[in-house]
């Protein structure tokens, strides 16, 4: 008589991680089921290969230096820097994200017959994460993608932002058509977009870049 196959127990069986009574059950099944036996042999081979894969370990020095490093970062974090200045976090960073996305979209051409890969990638990345990318990049590049504090004052506000976003670094000026931004949303509120608004924005941006 044939009972249910026990595939899902086999990886643990092969590595000897089953409870004794479960193990007995598996052994009993294997005696009568060639399918599961051949599956078990496959898994044994793969798991054997995986067990031989040993990545190089970091030096002991690395681990002894880790705590001081973490402590240092915690200390640095608590001295308020410009990067975590509320003004920066609330306005400049989200705006930079908006600019960033748009610059990227305008620079990366997608062949028309290909599905725009941006949507799937950006779709599962939150604006927080994009923001993080921008922040990271801003720290080792010279042009300055992010607007500096003194430029804040010269930012157009509210409705005006829907029509254009000012300079990025020394070279790029990005203009955004009002229609690109879902109505009632200003770029600096990109963090507040809900999923469907963000989707719309991405879609519209995506369509524009498919040449």
């Amino acid at each position, binding site marked *: 008589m044939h009972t249910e196959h026990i*595939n*899902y*127990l*086999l*990886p*643990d069986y092969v*590595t000897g*991680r089953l409870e004794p009574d479960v193990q007995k059950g598996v052994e009993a099944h294997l005696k009568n089921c060639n399918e599961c036996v051949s599956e078990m042999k*496959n*898994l044994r*081979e*793969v*798991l054997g*290969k*995986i067990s031989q*894969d040993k*990545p190089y370990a*970091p030096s002991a020095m*690395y*681990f002894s230096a*880790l*705590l001081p*490093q*973490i*402590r240092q*970062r*915690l200390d640095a*974090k608590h001295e308020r820097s410009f990067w975590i200045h509320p003004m920066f976090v609330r306005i400049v960073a989200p705006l930079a994200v908006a600019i960033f996305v748009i610059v*990227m979209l305008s*620079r*990366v051409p997608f062949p028309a017959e290909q599905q725009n*890969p*941006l949507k799937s*990638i*950006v779709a*599962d*990345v939150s604006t927080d*994460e*994009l923001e*993080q*990318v921008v922040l990271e*990049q801003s720290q*080792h*590049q010279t*042009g300055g*993608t992010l607007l500096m504090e003194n430029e804040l004052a010269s930012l157009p506000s509210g409705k005006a932002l829907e029509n254009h976003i000012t300079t990025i670094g020394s070279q790029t000026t990005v203009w955004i058509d009002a229609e690109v931004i879902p109505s009632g949303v200003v770029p600096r509120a990109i963090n507040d977009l809900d999923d469907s608004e963000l989707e719309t924005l991405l879609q519209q941006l995506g369509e524009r870049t498919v040449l």
Partner: protein
Amino acid sequence: MTDRSDLELVRLFQQGDESAFNHVVLRYQEKIYWVARRFVNEHDGADDVTQEVFIKAYESLKEFRSESSLYTWLYRITVNIALNVLRRNKVKEFFRIDELFDPEDVESGTPDKLLERQEERTLIEQAIATLPDKQKAVFVLRYYEEMPYEEIAKVLKTSVGGLKANYFHAVKKIEEYLKRAHGTH
């Protein structure tokens, strides 16, 4: 202090004892590093994740309630941060941010960057990298950490049912990847 339990350390820290946090780090740093390393496959990334985990832990430990164990809690933070890093890397790769922002850097190729590129991933690492998030998490926690399924369920905030299937399918996917890779040689 090394003989204190996790919960005692947490309580001491919550009462303002900073050194208790140091002991948490020392107790878990290697475990966390290796989980991170299995996810991101290279040392620098694992280092970043490990540091992030403890910084996040430091900031959230004040609110830690003993509903879950410290260990489960730290692993959950690690899995979340590691998966975020992988997604961010995907965006970076897609936009090739390095070229855009650091044209000089790419032309000359700083030693660090070149080394990074040369650091070849083993076939197994490449195979694991192709697993979907949940399968990857289950595989790393089950295979490398030998974590019981009940614990894995807590770390991933999911039910136990289905985890064995996830694990099985992860191993099968690695098997297929290896077969395909060998087929091309």
